[in-house]
C-alpha cells in the first residue's frame, strides 16, 4: 500500500466544516450546570424501548429531558459496502435484512433501480403482484408499529402487550400468505431483476381475502384498547408534536410526514408498479403528535386492506418476469446510467441509488435512503422538554427500524 497517498490528498476534517443551518434542538445548559443538578442517562443501546439498538444520550433535569442526542450505528453491518462485492442477483436477499419488518419493499426498491438502469419493463402481472405484496407488507409492518407503540406505553408485562400480541397474531396471517407464496416467512427473496420469482399459487388469493377479512374484523378491537381508552389517549395526545416545517426540514416522509400534515405519498404522486391504475386515498393528519402517528397507521392499514382486496380481484394474466440479459444462471449484466428509485415503503420514502460497474455485474456504489434514518433524527428535536416516559412514547411512535437506519 502506498504511503504517499495521505501526503498528497488533504482531507478536511468534518469538524472543520460549517454545519448547515438547522433548527437548534439544544437548550442552553449553562443555567443547569451551575446548579449541578443535571443527570446524564444513556437510554440504550440495550434498553427495552429502543426497538433494536439505538442509544439516546439524555440530559435530564429531574425527569424532564433538557437535551437529547441520538447515537445510531450499533447495528451497522456495512450492507452498502458488502453489496459492492456481490453480484446483482445476490443482493436481494441481503436487502431483506435491511428493513426487517418490511423486507418486501426493500427488495422491490433495489430491483426497480436495476430495472431502471437496464431499461427493462416488468410485465403487468409481475408489477401487479409486486403492488399486492407491497400493500400486504405495509399492513404487516404497520401492525407491528401499532403493537410496539402500545407496548412502549403500556409496559412489557401488562396491558401494553395485549395489543402487541394481537397485532402479531394478525401479522401471522400475512406472513402465512407470504410463506405459501415464497416458502419463507421473513426473507422472501421473491422480487428479482425483471419481475417476480414466484407466481401466485392457485387458491392463494382466497386465503389472503379471508386473512384480510379477519384482520379488518379484529382491528375493531384495537380501538377498544387504544383510542377508546382515556389512559391511552392521555399518554399520546399532544405528546411529541412534530411540526410540518421541522418534518420537511428533516426529510420525513411516509406516515410520520402525513401525521404532520405533509400530503405526500409516492404511490399517488409518483406512481410506480401498478399504483397508477388504483384510486389511493391518502390519509393526512395535521396534529403531528403521537396519537396522530398512531391513528395514521391504523387508517393506512384500512386503506391497504381495501387496496389489497381490489388488487386481488383483478390479477391480470401473463408472465410475471420479463426476459433478462442473463450471462449465467445467477448473474445478469446491467449497464447504463446511474439511477435513483424511490418507492413508498411502510415507513416513508425508501430510495436506492445505484451505479453499476463497467462490467455491469455488480454495483460500483449503492446508497440506500432509509426513511427510518430521518425518523430517528427527530429525536433530538422532539424529546427536550418532555418527560422520560414521553420519550419512550415518542420513540415508539416513530417506529424506527434500526436495521435500515444503520444498514
Amino acid at each position: 500500500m502506498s504511503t504517499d497517498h495521505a501526503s498528497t490528498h488533504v482531507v478536511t476534517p468534518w469538524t472543520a466544516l460549517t454545519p448547515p443551518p438547522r433548527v437548534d434542538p439544544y437548550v442552553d445548559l449553562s443555567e443547569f450546570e451551575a446548579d449541578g443538578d443535571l443527570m446524564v442517562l444513556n437510554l440504550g443501546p440495550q434498553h427495552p424501548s429502543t426497538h433494536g439498538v439505538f442509544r439516546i444520550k439524555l440530559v435530564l433535569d429531574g425527569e424532564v429531558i433538557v437535551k437529547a442526542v441520538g447515537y445510531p450505528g450499533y447495528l451497522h453491518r456495512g450492507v452498502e459496502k458488502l453489496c459492492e462485492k456481490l453480484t446483482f442477483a445476490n443482493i436481494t436477499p441481503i436487502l431483506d435484512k435491511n428493513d426487517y419488518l418490511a423486507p418486501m419493499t426493500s427488495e422491490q426498491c433495489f430491483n426497480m433501480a436495476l430495472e431502471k438502469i437496464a431499461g427493462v419493463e416488468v410485465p403487468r402481472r409481475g408489477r401487479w403482484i409486486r403492488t399486492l405484496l407491497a400493500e400486504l407488507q405495509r399492513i404487516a409492518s404497520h401492525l407491528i408499529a401499532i403493537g410496539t407503540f402500545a407496548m412502549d406505553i403500556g409496559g412489557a408485562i401488562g396491558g401494553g402487550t395485549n395489543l402487541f400480541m394481537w397485532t402479531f397474531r394478525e401479522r401471522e396471517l400475512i406472513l402465512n400468505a407470504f410463506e405459501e407464496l415464497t416458502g419463507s416467512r421473513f426473507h422472501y427473496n421473491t422480487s428479482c431483476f425483471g419481475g417476480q420469482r414466484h407466481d401466485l399459487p392457485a387458491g392463494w388469493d382466497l386465503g389472503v381475502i379471508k386473512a384480510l377479512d379477519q384482520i379488518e374484523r379484529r382491528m375493531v378491537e384495537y380501538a377498544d384498547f387504544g383510542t377508546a381508552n382515556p389512559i391511552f389517549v392521555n399518554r399520546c395526545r399532544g405528546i411529541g408534536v412534530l411540526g410540518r416545517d421541522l418534518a420537511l426540514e428533516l426529510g420525513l416522509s411516509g406516515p410520520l410526514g402525513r401525521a404532520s400534515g405533509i400530503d405526500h405519498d409516492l404511490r399517488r404522486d409518483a406512481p410506480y408498479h401498478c399504483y397508477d391504475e388504483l384510486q389511493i386515498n391518502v390519509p393526512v393528519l395535521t396534529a403531528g403528535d403521537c396519537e396522530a402517528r398512531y391513528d395514521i397507521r391504523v387508517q393506512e392499514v384500512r386503506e391497504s386492506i381495501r387496496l389489497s382486496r381490489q388488487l386481488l380481484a383483478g390479477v391480470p394474466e401473463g408472465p410475471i418476469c420479463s426476459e433478462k440479459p442473463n450471462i449465467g444462471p445467477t448473474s445478469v449484466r446491467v449497464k447504463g446510467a446511474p439511477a435513483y428509485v424511490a418507492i413508498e415503503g411502510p415507513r416513508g420514502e425508501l430510495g436506492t441509488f445505484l451505479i453499476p460497474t463497467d462490467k455491469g455485474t455488480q454495483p460500483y456504489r449503492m446508497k440506500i435512503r432509509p426513511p427510518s434514518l430521518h425518523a430517528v433524527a427527530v429525536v433530538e428535536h422532539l424529546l427536550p422538554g418532555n418527560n422520560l416516559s414521553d420519550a419512550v412514547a415518542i420513540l415508539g411512535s416513530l417506529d424506527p427500524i434500526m436495521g435500515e437506519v444503520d444498514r
Partner: protein
Amino acid sequence: MTVASNASNSFIMSLPSPVPEILTHPVGHGLVMGTIILTFFMLISAWSIWFERRFAGRMQSRVGPNVVGPAGLLQPIADAIKLLRKENLVPSGADKVLFWLSPPMTLFFTLATLAVIPLSEDLLVAELDIGLLWVLAFSGLLLFPTWIAGWASNNKYTLFASMRAVAQGISYEIPLLFSAIVPVVVVGSLSISDIVRYQGEHGWLLFWPLGPGALGFLIFFVASLAEANRIPFDVPEAESELVAGVTVEYSGMMYGLFPMTEYVHTLITSALASALFLGGWYGPFGWAPGVHWMVGKTLFLFFVIFWARWSLVRFRSDQLMRLCWVWLVPLSLLCVCGAALWVVYVGGVA
C-alpha cells in the same frame, strides 16, 4: 355479638373435640394461626402468578406456562428453584448493607400485616384493637425498602424508580387512609374484626351508607392498586422506561422476593378491601358466614387487579399525581365527611 350463632361455622368449633390444647394458649394459638394464614397467603400468591400468566395468555391468544407439571401447575416451584439457584450479584458500586437489607425488609413488612388479617371469625392471628392502623402502617413502611433498594443499587434507572415510588407512595397513602377511615367512622372501631362484625349485622359498607361506602371502596381499591404498584399505576416499575424499576440490579432470590412480596401485598390489600367494605366472612345479606366468603371475595378482587393489569396501559408519573391530588384526595375527604354526617344524622353506633 353473633359468635354463638356462628359457632357451627367457626374454624375452632369444626375441630375435633376436645380443642387441641395448643390453641388455647396465646402463643400456641398465634403460632398455629400464623402458620395457617402465612401458608394460605403464600401459596395463593405463588399460584396466582401461574393463574395470571395463564389468564394473560388467554387474553392475548397465546398459551402461557403449560409445560411444567399438569397444565403448568408446577411453574411457580420451577421459578422458585431457578431463582434460588442463581447467584445473588451485588454491583460493585452498590451500598452492600442496604442492598442486602432491602429484600428481607420488603418481606418482613408485607408479612407483618398478615397478623391482623382475619380470614373468618376466629381464623386470624391476633385481634388487635388497632388492627387497621397496623396494616396501613406496615404497608406504608413498604416504601422504605423500595426506596432503599433503588438508592443502594447505585443505578440511574433504580434511582428514578425509587424517586417515583416514594412520590407515588406518599401521595396515594392519603386517599388510602381517608377512604379506610370511612368504615372506622361508621363502625367506631379500628379493629378489622369489629368492622366485619358490624357488616354482618348492618349489611356491607359498600352498600350502606350508600355514597361514602361505594365511593370509599372505589378509592380504597384504586389507592391500594397504586400502593401495590400494579398497572395502571406501576410507574415505579415501568418496564418500557425504567427496564425493571428498583429491581434492575437484583438477581436470584434477592430479586425473587420483590415480585413475590408484591403479589402477597396485592393479595393482602384485596383481603383488606373485602374485610372493610365487602362484609369479610359474611355472605351477602349476612347469611352463612364462613372462611369461604372471605377467600372468595379476596380472590375476586385479586382477579380484578389482574384483569386491570392486562387490559390497561400505564399512566405517566405526573398524570398519576394529578389523579391522586385532583380527584382521589378531595373525593376521599368528601367520603369521610359523608360518613361522619351519616353517623350523626342517619344513625351510627358511635
